[in-house]
Structure formats: C-alpha cells, structure tokens
C-alpha cells in the first residue's frame, strides 16, 4: 500500500497549500454534477443524478438513482480516460453489433475506472468489481454518499475539468429480475454480462460560471427587490456544507 501512503501525503500537501491560494498541480477545486440517463441499447428504465465536490485531491460523492434492477449489486464508478471521448457511449459504440453495450465497448466513450464508488473500504480502480461493497439498490433505488475519497492529482483535475463520467452498472436485458443469461461478462467470465453491463451514465460537468443576466432595468429603482440583503459570494464559496450555510446565515444578519 505504498501508493496509498504517497497519495495521502500528496493530499496533505494540497490541503496545506490551498488556504494560501498557492497554485499547484495538486490544487483542483470545484463542483461537478451529472444527470444519469439510460445507456444506449441497454434498456434500463433508470435515472439519477450524481454530484462530486473536488477539494484538492479529495472527493465527496453524493448520488441518487432509481429504476435499477432491485436487490442486485450495482458496481458504480467514476470513469475517465485521457484518450477517451469523455462522454457516455452511443449505439455506435456497439463494436460487436449484438445490440447491447458492454462496459468494454463503452471504454472509448468514458475511459477506464478511476474511482470505485464502494460503500466501504478501498475506492481505487482495484475495487471496480468488489460487488459485495456496492449498493444493492433495494426497490431499485440507490442513495449514496461518501467523502474522503482520495485520487491522483491528474484524476482530480480531469473531474474538475468536466472530463469524467459516473457509470452505474448492472442491467436486466431479459427482464427476469436477476442477473442471468448465457452471455458472460467481458470483465469477469464468472459473472453474467448483465451484472456488469452499464445501466446509466452521466458526464460530470462543471457548474455554470457566474450569475444570470435577467433584467433590462425597466423597473429599476422601484424598490421591488431592495428588501433582500446583499450577500457576499467569495467567502461562501470557500466554505462547504454546514459551514457555508452557517456563514450565509451570519452574514445575512449583519
């Protein structure tokens, strides 16, 4: 686990640098989110959203999905590939023309696994098929949140840059309610293909920048909106979660 220790140290270094505003290869910060939609050809009537907060080389991932095959383990990952198209696969990615997309066939679109969204333990690509540690989607629903996920700086940067995708695997092509069928997985020949074929996918995209130009001034000065206290943004953006909320409340009463 030498690699893990090195990554942890890198993360520590970034944490030290960030408050000083010193630019560095480790310092990637940003919020990205994805709308998870059914993967082409695979027929999952599922949807969801995923949000990733990147702070240096540490990720917090929050994700909800529904309509998945219930009570079956669903491997979920963040995918990225420097050579990939950085998008979700299309029907044209069905290399063998069998009318279904395997995880491998989606590779040219979304790349390889960079983070395994396990519920416990290791989150590296090595846990990509650790089915005992992924959500089993009771009722077809997944509600997932995990912080303190550490990644390499280049991965953190790719995520912030909107180049990664969240993929939840596990479909039910033959609609018999379980992972089954003669086709075996391209990732693990002991598993049915249904267990690993991608179900939903969404590119993690950066939030819009800045506000909205939503007025012409024709009512300016009529005082319609002056009752609302002006709040600062920069300070708030630096905080997170409860911290930001608290800061917002404090400033609102100043």
């Amino acid at each position, binding site marked *: 686990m030498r690699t893990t220790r090195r990554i942890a140290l890198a993360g520590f270094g970034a944490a030290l640098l960030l408050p000083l505003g010193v630019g560095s290869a480790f310092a990637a910060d940003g919020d990205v989110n994805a709308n998870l939609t059914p993967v082409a050809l695979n027929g999952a009537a599922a949807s969801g959203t995923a949000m990733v907060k990147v702070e240096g080389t540490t990720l917090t991932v929050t994700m909800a999905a529904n309509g998945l095959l219930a009570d079956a383990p669903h491997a979920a990952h963040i995918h990225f590939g420097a050579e990939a198209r950085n998008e979700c696969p299309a029907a044209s990615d069905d290399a063998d023309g069998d009318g279904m997309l395997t995880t491998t066939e989606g590779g040219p679109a979304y790349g390889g696994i960079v983070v395994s969204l396990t519920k416990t333990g290791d989150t590296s690509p090595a846990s990509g098929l650790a089915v005992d540690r992924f959500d089993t989607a009771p009722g077809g629903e997944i509600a997932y*949140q995990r912080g303190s996920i550490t990644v390499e700086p280049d991965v953190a940067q790719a995520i912030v840059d909107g180049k990664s995708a969240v993929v939840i695997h596990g479909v039910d092509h033959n609609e018999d309610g379980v992972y089954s069928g003669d086709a075996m997985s391209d990732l693990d020949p002991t598993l049915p293909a249904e267990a690993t074929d991608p179900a939903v996918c969404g590119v993690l995209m950066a939030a819009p920048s800045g506000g909205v130009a939503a007025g012409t001034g024709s009512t300016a000065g009529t005082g319609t909106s002056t009752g*609302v206290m002006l709040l600062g943004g920069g300070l708030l953006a630096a905080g997170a979660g409860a911290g930001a909320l608290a800061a917002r409340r404090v400033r609102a009463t100043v």
Partner: protein
Amino acid sequence: MSDHRRHDGRSRILAAAAVVLAVAGALALVLGLRGGPAEMPTSPPLAASTEGPSDAAGSPPAAAADGSGDRADPVGPGGAARDAAPTAAETAPLPELGPILPASEPVSLTIPAIGVASDTLERLDVGPDGVLPAPTDFALPGWHTRGPNPGQLGPAVIAGHVDGPDGPAVFIRLGELQPGDEVQVGRADGTVATFVIDEVGRYAKADFPTSLVYGNTTDRAEIRLITCGGAFDRSTGHYVDNIVAFGHLVG
C-alpha cells in the same frame, strides 16, 4: 478500457459462491438499516449527513492502508465479506437524502405567494462560455438543462427575468418570497414537485456564489430560483446583483 481489463487478473476473487454470500449479507444489512421510506430530516441535513459517511467510511480503510505495510487483498472473497458486514453497519450509514423523484423535465411553475403561474418553461442550455443564459421570453421562466430536473437530487435551477422592455417580468416579485412559501413544479411525467423556500439571498454578480447556487452543497433535492436585483448599471445594461431563492423538496 485498460482499467477494466486489469480486473481480469482479479477475477479469481469473484468466485460465484463468494458473490452470492456477500450479496446476501449486504442485502440483509441494507434491509435492516433501511426500514421504511426515507423521511425528511428534522434538523438541517447539511450538518447531519455530510459529516457522518465521509469521516466514518473513509477513516478505517485509510488507517489500515497507512498503518500496515502489507495489507491483505482488500477485495478478497472471505476477507471482504467478513470485513464489510461489521464495518458497514458502524461506519457507512445510508445517507439521508430525503424525498427524491425520478428524472422528468419541468413543464410548469406555480408560486402562489408571488403570483407566478406559468404553464411553459424555456430550456436554458449553458453556452460554450459556461454561462447560464436567461430566458428569451420575459414572461417565461426557464430551467437549467444541465442541472438536475426539479425533484432529483441536487440543486435544480429555474431562472426568470425581473423586468423586460415593457416593465415587470415573470420574477419581478422573487425578492418577496419568504421562508415557508411553496413552489410547485409540474413535470412531464404528470407529477408535481413541491418545494418549500428556505431563504432568499441577494448576491453581487461579480461575486456570485457559484458553488452555493449550482454546486454539490446539498444532500437532498433542492431548487434555486434566480433573477436580477439590486442597482441597475446603465453603463452595462445589467443589474449588478442576482437574487436567489433557495428551497427544498417536500414531496
């Protein structure tokens, strides 16, 4: 692709029996923890759930990885099953995400407190410049297509003009919204997502809290209603501030 290939070498750990056992164990655990439908947390959920899973889930593995020079195969069949069951119960509680609706595009917006009743919403697609455009029709609200659909987990965004060439526009009274006011978003699937306003803020556009408004700062389905406000800068032709109303889904 190469990463997936790499897993082939590890497929030995996924012997079918181990998979079945582990899944059964995890399932029992999940069912045990997840009694009924999720309820809205009574305390501010940001404080409650952001901390728990992060710290709890992250610490033990990290400590193990750092402390022991040579850790056993982290995803081995027996080991994983034994490790996962007890630790999962203690360290990875299911996040409390509140009510969440499936994907379905918004088709109407009703905000009784400020007289908004629109049976159409424009699609607002973020441009190459990364900016969320305002609706082209001053009488219509628009929704941020790259964000969650209203009702899905995360911050759904609906923007509207405060005024147009002919005077007041659809969100002229947005700044009057009060905590507790209701916002109803009709959706293409026939459902209505009902949100309750938590607070209303005014932010300088030059100092816009992008993360607060669009970012991963929530762990429930929320909505942001955005319009302009503050002083009008005649030299730029724009208001200097944005008004943002924050709300969360109640059903």
